[in-house]
């Protein structure tokens, strides 16, 4: 049974499957840090995504796993050098002011997550929102 997490944002909830096989170290580190409550903001360089800065996930020496540059909608990514956890709702990419970067794709939303992703998208027009991530008990 795969590990899952539950995300809550602005009255909406979504569930995501953690990719334990593709990103085992990242998934374990995140799992051990749950629950997480942080401010979600819209990205400024990467496109259609929101992000939190999770201090417990910040480790510049932590390896990338399941490495990607482009984010698919509904995917969750970690940039360990910043502790940045991003949730994409449309086309997005691991970008910074200096150019294109990489991230670990560690989870993917499951089911109909459209209301949750709409809430992520609205952070561009409405501003920051509070995000909670916790273990989803099966």
């Amino acid at each position, binding site marked *: 049974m795969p590990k899952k997490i539950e995300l809550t944002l602005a009255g909406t909830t979504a569930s995501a499957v953690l990719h334990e096989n593709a990103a085992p170290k990242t998934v374990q580190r995140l799992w051990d840090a749950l629950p997480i409550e942080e401010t979600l903001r*819209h990205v*400024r*360089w990467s*496109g259609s995504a929101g992000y939190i800065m999770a201090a417990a996930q910040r480790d510049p020496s932590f390896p990338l796993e399941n490495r990607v540059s482009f984010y698919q909608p509904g995917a969750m990514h970690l940039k360990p050098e910043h502790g940045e956890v991003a949730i994409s709702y449309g086309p997005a990419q691991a970008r910074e*002011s200096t150019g294109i970067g990489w991230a670990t794709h560690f989870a993917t939303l499951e089911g109909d997550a459209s209301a949750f992703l709409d809430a992520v998208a609205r952070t561009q*027009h409405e*501003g*920051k929102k509070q995000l909670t991530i916790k273990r989803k008990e099966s």
Partner: protein
Amino acid sequence: MSRRIEVEIDGVRATFTLLEEWAPKATSIIWEALPLENKVLRHGKLSGDACFLDAEDPKFQQLPSRNELGVTSIYKGYMVAHLRPEQSSLELLMSYGVAEYRWPDGRRYVTPVGEIEGEGTALYDALQRTWSEGQKKITLRRAS
């Protein structure tokens, strides 16, 4: 005497000098289209520390089809324009930090049209707040 425009966001006002030597046609047409009142100012999602507004006006059909001075960087305190004469519109962007005009498929060129007068801290703060607080209203008018 250079033409100057006043920008107002959230009760904060700042004055920009139009860069007429760099972009004579674009700045002239923007001047003729003023005031641009109660437009929606949003934070960008690809270009870094920058906010943008879209404006439409029949006069914008006369904008140059190419940048008079093409740049990709949006330096702090500058206003740049993405010209869309075929749509009778333009996009204006202002930076409060490190910014570069980018689309999903990479960098794009824009025309610098204005430079802030003075130190601009209050305006930079208002621009930055759109990131945390969401979109705001912006007015651009001719400065007296």
